[in-house]
């Protein structure tokens, strides 16, 4: 057992008022500085090209999805958020997804799907908000996931640039 000896308070400390004034002085100084809080929903967050939001599917300029439902994002997904069923189509690209679902409640926004995709069909958009009334509505299908290529262009350019840099600095031949 240890008996703790409390420190004897000085007179200034026992008076209490000087300490109050010292604290308030910090408060008053902050009044005249620039506020760092953000009025979030009204004042959206700044979005940069490195913003890694929710994954979205690219719609090519011809109106078709770039996805061929190869299933690599499904296999790469560490949270098992993606489910894909493909079907045959009559175009030169023989397959497209019939069902492409991302369970946004499972998605951890890691970007592995973007990295795994061999067809540049899925990219992490700058969309961040995720709220709905039921769990079922947060399982996003193709309708909710598809975006025109132009909407994702900033991220696509960034990913290309980063990959090029990685490729050039890579030591493997």
């Amino acid at each position: 057992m240890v008996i703790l000896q409390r420190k004897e308070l000085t007179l200034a400390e026992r008076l209490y008022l000087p300490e109050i004034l010292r604290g308030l002085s910090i408060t008053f100084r902050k009044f005249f500085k620039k506020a760092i809080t953000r009025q979030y929903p009204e004042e959206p967050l700044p979005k940069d090209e490195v913003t890694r939001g929710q994954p979205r599917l690219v719609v090519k300029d011809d109106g078709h999805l770039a996805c061929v439902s190869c299933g690599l994002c499904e296999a790469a997904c560490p949270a098992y958020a993606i489910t894909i069923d493909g079907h045959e189509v009559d175009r030169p690209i023989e397959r497209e997804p019939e069902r492409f679902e991302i369970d946004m409640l499972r998605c951890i926004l890691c970007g592995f799907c973007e990295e795994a995709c061999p067809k540049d069909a899925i990219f992490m958009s700058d969309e961040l908000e995720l709220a709905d009334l039921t769990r079922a509505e947060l399982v996003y299908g193709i309708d909710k996931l598809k975006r025109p290529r132009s909407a994702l262009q900033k991220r696509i350019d960034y990913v290309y640039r980063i990959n090029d840099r990685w490729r050039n600095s890579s030591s493997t031949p």
Partner: protein
Amino acid sequence: MTTPESTGKPTVKIQLNGSEVEADPSQPLIRACHDHGVDVPMYCYHPGLHPVGSCRICQVEVKQGEAPPRVVAACRTSVAPGMVVDTESPKAHETRRECLEFLLKNHPLDCPICDKAGECDLQDYAFQEGQGEGRSSEPRRKLHKRRSLGDVIVLDEERCILCSRCVRFFEDVTGTAQLAVTGLGARSVIDTFMGRPLTGNYQGNVADICPVGALTLKRFRFQARVWNLTKTVSHCAECSRGCAITVEVLRRKQVKRFRPRFDPNVNQYWMCDTGRFAFDHVEIPACEPGELTGGRLTDAVQRGAHGVAGQGVAGSGVGARGLEAVDVDRALGRAADALTGAAARAIVLSPFVTQEEAGAALELARTLGAEVCFVSPPPNGLQDDLLHTGDPCPNRKGLETLGVPGLGADDVRARLAKAGVAVLVGERVQELIGLERLAALTGGVRLIVLDLVAHDLPGLEVALGVPCHVEKQGHWLNVDGLRRDLAIARSAPAGVEPLTRLLGQLAGAVGRPAGATAEVRR
């Protein structure tokens, strides 16, 4: 795979990657390598077909006698005594890598679309051994991507590496020689003679043996990615041959493929298309909403207490046809009551029941003093010289070994007509007897049905759901008396009990006095 030691054939000693091994001189060198766990890639070579040595990917370095070592194709070189084989020498690797580069020269880069991706020999070896980027600046050749070769197979000419396995399959195995390599040089393609579609019951095998994704099955095309399929070792149910297969299930629910598995005593590497596409017998749709019959029976149904066939009882929860859904315990109790009170009882088995289930049924028959038989449908006309026996009963031999006689559908009906209560056991038993025969039964026989589907038969007393053959364990005996084991490839629908357990509980319940069996306790 049998090693040369176990077959008792004469063997010779060779040096394989530094260790001395015994090899069968009647076999090509690549077999000796594979038998001793040395991985040599192969595209054109297939152990079930004659070797041609067209792809050259199996080249290894061999030194014989005093001559300097040479790089030879392991599939076209016979094992000779004193051979010194090095599969991993720099020269062998280099030669194989160069072969691979030429094979990939015109191969399209459509692995993301290709159904073979994930089980493709070319993809695997290119990943393991090949270089990341091609050196050719020439465009790849453009050919037909989707050529239908009959009802079963689609050919993608661009993906084809002209290994000619499919050509040799139709020469060596079926003997019909329906495919050939046509054209010369870079314009060579696989084609049928005169463009006629492929025929026969063994076409599906060429999609299995195709080392790339050139030949694909129409029924499986773009259905699933192969790494999403759970593969279970089992046996085919479509005839009494009982070919060794793997059952491949997508997301633990849907059976997507049956593929042959090597079995030296029964089917070698092959299976027929009847068995390959027998999904109708395992993918039974659920009942229509509000219906209890006509779809997969997941629990149990019984004739309502006051229900009469064709009449519902208003306000009693009894369905429009006098049937009601009950839990398994109550249904078993009802069945036991019916069996206990009856004078003449009969048990009819399906030819799909396993030996274990047949044993449980015989136990029930002993308790009841009932006669047992199994439905034996006539040959279905699919018999051929290769695998299909034409007999749709996978466990005929096993049931006959147990002393259960097989009766034709009409004889079964005659036997049922004489019984007071009959138990119909096993998947598809009603279908095999014939629904119209069961519906036309006179004499007030009450039917206790243990089947995949309940049908609204006038005599139906109780129907219980059972697992189908990809959902149960057990074994059959095939036409030659060989044991054919079944394994659980996917779980049965919730509420479905194993048939052996249902029969065991029924046998336990009928021994007790009537009335005391209203509910079977587990």
